[in-house]
């Protein structure tokens, strides 16, 4: 800009010289010179950047905020860099700045930004000048300065005739439900999620158990066992070549009968353990033998791939019935129960 001014001055000087040295020059030459000068002025105006600083007020009280507006007008062809104050503008403290406003005109653009400034001492402060960097037409970086605004910062009048008062205690603001609503809502939400989680987890766990609880039959054990054996007979498993299944079901029924009748975990006992256990009961040898024979045959079928003859299969069922007959509670025992 300075260069432009120099150029304009040079032009004016040249104009004077022409006027002084050659008064006789014609109107045509003068007009050409004027047109040329105007062209130069126009060209320089095309490259100019004008930064203007305006303030809401020129007088503030110490610590008050002052709004200052920086407007930078420049032609569209020029690229400018708006200043980014960090600590101060002029010698005033910088508080904050607004977003940059862009106003487009015919050939110009105006960038405007508001700064909030303050001062913490009394006296005269200066909000400016603010430097705006731009790229001139030659491609070099140039600086345009804004105007300076003098701000008078006055202090608060202290009445020294009155004694100093202590600092006021913090204000006790009453709580409102509105404040607690997000917390209450969040807690309720978390609680609901936790309950859903527990339900899903339990459901998952409930599905998982390998071992299911064994419900006790409503009928007395001997009646229940006979019904189960009858059912097994009717299914005719061994006749359908499902011998292993037949013996598995047969021994399971007998083991469960033992469990319900004598209250011990027969289903979790091996044949040897069952033999040992029933040995301690006052049972007829025939009863023990009929049970053990069935269990031993079943073990061979289940674990040694044995395929017994139909007679053996029928005998196993017969022995099972026999064992139940032998061990069925006697009349006195039934009455006691």
């Amino acid at each position, binding site marked *: 800009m300075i260069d432009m001014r120099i150029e304009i001055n040079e032009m004016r000087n040249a104009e004077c010289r022409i006027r002084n040295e050659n008064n006789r020059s014609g109107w045509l030459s003068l007009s050409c010179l004027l047109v040329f000068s105007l062209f130069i002025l126009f060209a320089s105006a095309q490259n100019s950047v004008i930064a203007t600083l305006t303030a809401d007020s020129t007088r503030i009280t110490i610590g008050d905020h002052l709004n200052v507006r920086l407007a930078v007008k420049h032609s569209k062809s020029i690229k400018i860099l708006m200043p980014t104050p960090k600590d101060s503008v002029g010698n005033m403290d910088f508080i904050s700045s607004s977003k940059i406003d862009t106003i487009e005109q015919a050939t110009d653009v105006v960038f405007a930004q508001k700064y909030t400034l303050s001062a913490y001492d009394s006296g005269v402060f200066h909000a400016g000048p603010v430097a705006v960097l731009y790229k001139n037409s030659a491609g070099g970086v140039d600086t345009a300065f804004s105007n300076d605004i003098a701000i008078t910062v006055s202090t608060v009048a202290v009445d020294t005739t009155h004694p100093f008062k202590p600092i006021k205690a913090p204000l006790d603001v009453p709580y409102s439900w509105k404040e607690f609503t997000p917390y209450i809502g969040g807690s309720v939400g978390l609680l609901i999620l936790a309950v859903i989680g527990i339900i899903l987890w339990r459901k998952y*766990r409930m599905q*998982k*158990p*390998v*071992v299911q*609880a064994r419900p006790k039959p409503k009928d007395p054990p001997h009646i229940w066992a006979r019904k189960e054996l009858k059912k097994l007979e009717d299914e005719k498993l061994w006749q359908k070549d499902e011998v292993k299944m037949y013996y*598995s079901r047969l021994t399971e029924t007998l083991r469960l009968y033992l469990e319900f009748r004598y209250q011990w*975990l027969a*289903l*979790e*006992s*091996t*044949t*040897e353990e069952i033999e040992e256990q029933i040995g301690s009961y006052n049972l007829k040898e025939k009863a023990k033998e009929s049970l053990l024979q069935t269990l031993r*045959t079943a*073990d*061979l079928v*289940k*674990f*040694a*791939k*044995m*395929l*017994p*003859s139909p*007679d*053996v299969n029928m005998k196993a069922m017969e022995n099972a019935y026999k064992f139940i007959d032998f061990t069925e509670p006697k009349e006195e025992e039934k009455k006691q129960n």
Partner: protein
Amino acid sequence: MEIISGNTTVDIAALNERINRESAFVDVLNLELGKAIIGQKYMVERLMLAMLANGHILLEGVPGLAKTLAIKSLASAIHAKFSRIQFTPDLLPGDLTGTMIFNQKENNFTVKKGPIFANLILADEINRAPAKVQSALLEAMQEKQVTIGENSYKLEEPFLVLATQNPIEQEGTYPLPEAQVDRFMLKVVVTYPKKEEERMIIRQNMQLAGQTINPVVRQEDILNARKTVREVYMDEKIERYILDIVFATRNPEDYKLNKIKSFINYGASPRASINLALASKAYAFIKRRGYVIPEDVRAICFDVMRHRIGLTYEAEAENINSEEIISEILNAVEVP
């Protein structure tokens, strides 16, 4: 009992017959061992079981319970090479596996094989040696080979390690890490002999001439028997039973065993399932059967599982041991 002929049935019957034939040496071996060892039938049976299942044994028991005598007698009875290694805190891996020695005459290194190159090894008080020595032994047990210098040497079959641990005097010991204990197929707790047995022991020891054990079994018999053991039939019902037992140690709540859940830090590894199956087959073989029954699984379950269940501090505080946990599991898992 009549057995209908069928391919599978014939197989089992043939296998039973073969087992009867091949397991005959078990009785002979028992008789021979009985000359030197009085009582301790359980330990001797487990020794044979491990030998047939190609596993190793960790013995826990106070000193003087014929542990060394048992394995020494077994080695003599099967005409196998026996080594005894006393584990001490200053033992080095090289003392065990062997080392390269410089031969000044020939100006080169020669291999000096260690005591581990034997058929039957007694690793006495294994927990007295530091971890690197234990690890060298356990590596040899697992890989069945030893590397000295740049060469690897296969260990001769049969190769059985019998390690002992003293349950008392824990001061200055290096307890075996869980991962290493897991490599022992069986952990057998050796107890005191019965009164009558101990009387016999006194009498036997009063005799001037000690009993000599004669080799009655060839190593080939043992190796053949090992092959047959693997052929013993195991029904899928038994497999499921084994899996249920092992899984009950991992997820007790699935087997209505919530009460022991807090006592188990970690359950048995898949190696437990493998060893339980293998040891059950070996047990069935010893009992002259070509098939495994639930009784076999239960008979060896304690020895296979007791060192594979990690107990919590809560269990220790309640004075609950792994045997009690196994008992609870066996009482809760349905027998097929």
